[in-house]
C-alpha cells in the first residue's frame, strides 16, 4: 500500500492544530471559565492622577444587595501583603541602585495615576459589585500632577514618590564616553536629531481577567489569569506579595487572547482576587472592560531622545551619542527598568559598524499608567531612532540613503561581531536582506510609480535596515545586568506507551501557534505525526517550570529545550533498542522515528521502544529505568539576532493629510523557519502594529494626567482598511548557538516597520523641506506641515 504522508517537519506550513477550537467558539479564555460558587470583583479606581486619600467610607456600599466583602489597601497592609515586585534592578552611572518605590496592590495613602486601584468590591454579580463600588465614598485631596516627563523633571515638580527625588528612577549609561568624544572631535560632520517615540497602548483584544480560588480543605490557592508566563506569576505573587509557597499555589494561563508584552507582568488584580478568595472562601472573577484596560494595562514606548551621529568625509560613521528620557509611569512595572537600557541602548549599533557609542538614559516617574515592554520593547525605539537618523544624515551628507546604509553595514564575513555596546552578534547578512527587499519592493521602479501617482497624491518610499536582539536570554548575562530571574526555558517530552507524544513547555502561546510549531519539532526529530503530538502549556500544575513567552524567545529558548529533551529521549531509546535488537548502542542509528542497527535490516519504531519502556518484560532493567519521559532546561549562550529590511511606500492626500501605505515589503532573517505560514503571519501582525505606531496610535495625557485617548473611540487602532497587503519573505542565516538555528520572528515586524513608514512619509513630503515628522503621522499633523502651520510637527 502506498500511503502519502504529508511532510509535517521543519519547513512545512502545517495548518494550525489550535484553530479548530478557536473557529468553533470552543477556546477557553479566562473569562470563559466559571467556577462553582463564583463571585465577581469590581475594582474602584482613582479618578485622579495624583491625590492623597483622606478617607474611604465603605459602609453604604457594604450594605448593598449581593455584596460579600469590600477591601482597601489598609486591609492588605494589615496582613503584611507585599507590594508588586520589580524584576530588574538598574544601577545609575554613580553606582547607586535605581529608586524602587513601593507599589502597593491597593493604594495606601496616595494614588499616583488615573486607574490606580483603591478598593475592591466582591459581590454575587458583576453588576451588584459595580453598583456597590459606586457607593464607596473616597475623600481625595487632589495634588498637582506630573503627567509628562517635562513636567516631572521641572524644578519644583510634584514629588510622586518619597524615595525618588526629582522623580528620577535612574540615570544610567553605557559605552565609552571618552572614546565617543574623541571620535566626534575628528568628525567631518555631526548630525543632530531629536525625536519622541510615541506612547502606545498594547490593546490585546482579550481584556485582562483573573479568577482566584481557595480550597479551605487543602489550603491551596488557584489563579486563572491572562498571562504570558504563569510560572513567573506564581513566583512573583507567591514569594513577594501573598507569601504562599509554590506547592500551595497553582497558576493557570488558559487560552490567552493576545499579549504583545502587556500580559507578562504581575498585576494587582491577580493578587487581589487570589488573596480575597481566601477571605470570602469562594472563587472570585475579575474581568477588565476596555476602559479599565486603558488605565491599568502597562503602556509601551514613550521616549524622548536627542542623538548625534559623527561621520567622516567618506560617509563612514565614526560614533554615536544618545541621550534618552524614558517614561516609567507612576510605578515600576515588572520589567520596566530594563526596557530603555539593556533592550534599547545595547541595540544602538544596529546593523552598522559604528565603532564607538555612548548612551545615557534617564528613567522618569510620572503620574501615568506604568510603562513596560510592548512588542519589541526598547528595540523598536532604538531602531526608529537609528533608521530615521540614517535618513536624516544621508540627506544632510548628500548621500543616497541606501548606499549610506550599505557603506556602514557590518559585512557578512565579520561575524561573530562585537559591538561597542555589549552585544556580540553571531550571524547575519544585511546586504542579502537589503538586496532581496529592494528587489521585491521594486525600489528602482519607484520614481516611475511616483510620476504616475494618482492625481495630486504625494508618493514616497522609505527603507529601514534593522536588527534586534531576542530569544532572551542567557541567565548569567541578564543576571549581571540586573535581572532578578533566570531566563532559560524548560521542556518535557513524554513519549506514551504506544508512541504518541505529549510536550510540556514553559513557553506560553497566546496567538503564536505553539501547539503546531512545537508539534512540528517533534514530528521532525522523532517522526511522530503532528496529530499525535499534544502540546501542554500554561499550567503550573502540569508543566514543571517555565519562564514564559516574550522577547521572541519561545522557539529559540523553549524549542531548544525541547530539542535537548528529545535528544535525551533518543539516547535512552537507543539503549533500549540496542537491548531489544541485541546490538551495541554505538551501532544503533535513529532517524525520524526508526531505530536501526547500522548495516543491517534490523529496526524498531519509536512506538516499539516506548512500549518496551512502559512494559519492560524484555528490558535492560539493571541499567535503565522504565518509562520514556525526559525534561531539559536550556539556557542559551547568547541572544539571537534577527534582522532584515523593510520598505514602505506611501501616498499622501495633500488636501486632507491622510497617509496611505500602498505597498509594504519585508524581508527578514529570522533564522531557520519551522512553519513559514506562521512566520509570515507573525511578521504581518507585527508590521500592522508598526504601521499603527507610525500613522495612528498615540496615548495622550492632558496636563492633569487624564488619558485623553482612553477608549477605542479616541485611540486609533489599525483596522483592515488602514493597512495594505504585507509582502513577506525570509532570507536565512542560521543562529550559530542554538540547536535549531532559529532566531525568532514575533517582534521583527513591529521593530522594522515604523521607521520604514516614516522615512516614506518624509520622502513623500520632500518638496516641502521637511526634515522630520513625529509619529504618529496623523492627517491633521501632515496637513499642518503641508500648509505651513507646523504647529504639531517637530522641526
Amino acid at each position, binding site marked *: 500500500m502506498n500511503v502519502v504522508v504529508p511532510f509535517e517537519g521543519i519547513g512545512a506550513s502545517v495548518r494550525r492544530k489550535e484553530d479548530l477550537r478557536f*473557529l*468553533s*467558539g470552543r477556546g477557553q479564555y479566562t473569562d470563559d471559565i466559571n467556577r462553582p460558587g463564583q463571585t465577581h470583583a469590581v475594582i474602584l479606581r482613582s479618578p485622579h492622577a495624583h491625590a492623597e486619600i483622606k478617607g474611604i467610607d465603605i459602609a453604604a456600599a457594604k450594605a448593598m444587595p449581593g455584596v460579600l466583602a469590600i477591601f482597601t489597601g489598609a486591609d492588605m497592609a494589615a496582613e503584611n501583603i507585599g507590594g508588586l515586585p520589580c524584576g530588574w534592578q538598574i544601577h545609575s552611572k554613580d553606582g547607586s541602585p535605581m529608586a524602587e518605590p513601593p507599589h502597593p496592590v491597593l493604594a495606601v495613602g496616595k494614588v499616583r495615576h488615573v486607574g490606580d486601584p483603591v478598593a475592591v468590591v466582591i459581590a454575587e454579580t458583576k453588576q451588584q459589585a459595580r453598583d456597590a463600588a459606586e457607593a464607596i465614598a473616597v475623600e481625595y485631596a487632589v495634588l498637582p500632577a506630573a503627567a509628562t516627563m517635562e513636567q516631572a523633571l521641572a524644578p519644583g515638580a510634584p514629588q510622586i514618590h518619597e524615595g525618588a527625588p526629582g522623580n528620577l528612577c535612574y540615570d544610567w549609561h553605557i559605552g565609552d564616553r571618552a572614546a565617543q568624544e574623541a571620535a566626534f572631535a575628528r568628525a567631518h560632520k555631526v548630525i543632530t536629531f531629536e525625536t519622541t517615540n510615541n506612547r502606545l497602548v498594547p490593546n490585546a*483584544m482579550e481584556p485582562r481577567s483573573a479568577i482566584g480560588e481557595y480550597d479551605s480543605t487543602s489550603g491551596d490557592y488557584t489563579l486563572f489569569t491572562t498571562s504570558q508566563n504563569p510560572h513567573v506569576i506564581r513566583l512573583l505573587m507567591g514569594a513577594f506579595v501573598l507569601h504562599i509557597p509554590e506547592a500551595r499555589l497553582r497558576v493557570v494561563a488558559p487560552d490567552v*487572547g493576545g499579549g504583545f508584552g502587556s500580559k507578562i507582568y504581575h498585576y494587582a488584580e491577580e493578587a487581589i482576587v487570589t488573596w480575597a478568595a481566601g477571605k470570602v472562601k469562594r472563587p472570585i472573577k475579575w474581568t477588565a472592560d476596555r476602559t479599565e484596560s486603558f488605565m491599568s494595562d502597562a503602556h509601551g514606548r514613550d521616549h524622548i531622545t536627542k542623538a548625534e551621529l559623527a561621520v567622516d568625509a567618506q560617509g563612514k560613521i565614526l560614533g554615536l551619542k544618545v541621550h534618552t528620557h524614558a517614561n516609567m509611569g507612576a510605578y515600576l512595572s515588572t520589567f520596566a527598568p530594563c526596557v530603555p537600557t539593556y533592550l534599547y541602548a545595547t541595540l544602538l549599533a544596529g546593523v552598522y559598524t559604528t565603532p564607538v557609542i555612548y548612551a545615557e538614559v534617564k528613567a522618569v516617574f510620572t503620574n501615568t499608567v506604568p510603562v513596560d515592554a510592548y512588542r519589541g520593547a526598547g528595540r523598536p525605539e532604538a531602531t526608529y531612532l537609528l533608521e530615521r537618523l540614517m535618513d536624516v544624515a544621508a540627506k544632510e551628507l548628500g548621500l543616497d540613503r541606501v548606499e549610506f546604509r550599505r557603506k556602514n553595514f557590518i559585512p557578512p564575513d565579520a561575524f561573530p561581531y562585537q559591538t561597542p555596546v555589549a552585544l556580540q552578534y553571531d550571524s547575519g547578512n544585511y546586504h542579502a536582506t537589503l538586496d532581496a527587499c529592494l528587489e521585491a519592493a521594486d525600489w528602482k521602479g519607484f520614481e516611475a510609480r511616483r510620476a504616475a501617482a494618482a492625481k495630486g497624491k504625494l508618493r514616497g518610499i522609505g527603507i529601514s535596515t534593522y536588527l534586534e536582539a531576542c530569544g532572551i536570554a542567557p541567565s548569567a548575562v541578564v543576571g549581571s545586568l540586573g535581572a532578578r530571574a533566570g531566563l532559560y526555558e524548560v521542556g518535557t517530552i513524554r513519549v506514551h506507551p504506544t508512541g504518541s507524544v505529549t510536550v510540556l513547555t514553559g513557553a506560553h502561546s497566546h496567538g503564536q501557534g505553539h501547539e503546531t510549531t512545537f508539534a512540528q519539532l517533534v514530528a521532525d526529530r522523532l517522526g511522530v505525526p503532528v496529530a499525535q503530538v499534544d502540546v501542554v502549556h500554561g499550567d503550573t500544575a502540569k508543566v514543571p517550570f517555565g519562564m514564559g513567552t516574550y522577547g521572541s524567545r519561545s522557539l529559540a529558548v523553549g524549542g531548544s529545550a525541547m530539542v535537548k529533551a528529545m535528544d535525551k529521549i533518543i539516547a535512552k531509546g537507543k539503549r533500549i533498542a540496542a537491548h531489544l535488537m541485541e546490538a551495541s548502542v554505538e551501532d544503533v542509528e535513529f532517524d525520524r522515528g526508526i531505530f536501526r542497527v547500522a548495516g543491517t535490516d534490523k529496526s524498531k519504531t519509536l512506538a516499539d521502544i516506548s512500549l518496551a519502556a512502559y512494559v519492560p518484560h524484555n528490558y535492560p532493567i539493571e541499567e535503565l529505568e522504565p518509562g520514556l519521559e525526559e525534561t531539559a532546561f536550556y539556557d542559551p549562550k547568547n541572544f539571537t539576532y534577527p534582522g532584515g529590511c523593510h520598505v514602505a511606500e506611501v501616498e499622501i492626500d495633500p488636501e486632507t493629510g491622510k497617509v496611505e501605505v500602498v505597498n509594504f515589503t519585508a524581508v527578514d532573517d529570522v533564522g531557520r523557519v519551522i512553519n513559514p505560514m506562521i512566520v509570515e503571519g507573525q511578521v504581518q*501582525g507585527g508590521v500592522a502594529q508598526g504601521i499603527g505606531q507610525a500613522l495612528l496610535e498615540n496615548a495622550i495625557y492632558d496636563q492633569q494626567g487624564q488619558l485623553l485617548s482612553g477608549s477605542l473611540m479616541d485611540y486609533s487602532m489599525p483596522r483592515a482598511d488602514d493597512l495594505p497587503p504585507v509582502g513577506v519573505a525570509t532570507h536565512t542565516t542560521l543562529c550559530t548557538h542554538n540547536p535549531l538555528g532559529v532566531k525568532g520572528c514575533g517582534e521583527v515586524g513591529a521593530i522594522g516597520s515604523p521607521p520604514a513608514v516614516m522615512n516614506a512619509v518624509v520622502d513623500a513630503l520632500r518638496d516641502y523641506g521637511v526634515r522630520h515628522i513625529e509619529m504618529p503621522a496623523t492627517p491633521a499633523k501632515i496637513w499642518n506641515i503641508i500648509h505651513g502651520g507646523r504647529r504639531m510637527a517637530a522641526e
Partner: protein
Amino acid sequence: MPQVTLTVNGTKHTVEVEARTLLVELLREKLRLTGTHVGCDTSQCGACVVHMGGDSIKSCTILAVQCEGAEVTTIEGLAKPDGTLHPMQEAFREYHALQCGFCTPGMVMSAIDLVNKHPQGLTEQEIREGLEGNICRCTGYHNIVKAIAAAADVMHGKRSELARAAE
C-alpha cells in the same frame, strides 16, 4: 424579572433576565455559549458579533429583552452537526486568518454577513471596508482578507473547495 424567549443555534430558550442584560451576557452567562467574546465597551471591536435574523449585529449593543422571538446564530452554531465547518471557518484555518483567536468568532460572523450581502462578489477593498466593525490586533488582516475572498468563492458556488493558500 423579565423573561425572554429566543432561538439560539436552532434551540429555543426561555430565560429570565434583568432588563439591563445584554444579549452577549445572556449568551455567555446564561447559555454558556462563551465563543462570543467581549473586547471593548464602546461597540467598536466586533468580538461579540452574532447573527440575528441573518444580519450581523454586535451582541454587546442590544438588550436581551429586545431579542424576543429572534433567531440568533453564534459561532457555535455555524458548523454542521457532523462537525463539517462552514466554508468561512474552513477558509480562516486554511489561510491562517487567526492567531490568538479572540476576535475570530466575531470576525467570522461579520465575514459571513459580508459575503452573503455581496452575491456579485467582493473586491479586496470592499472586504477591507466591510471589516470596519471588527478589530484584530494579531494578524494585520492580510490573511483574513485572503480567507474571506476564498470563502466567498465557495459560498457563491464559484469553487467547490478552498485552494491551498501557501505552498
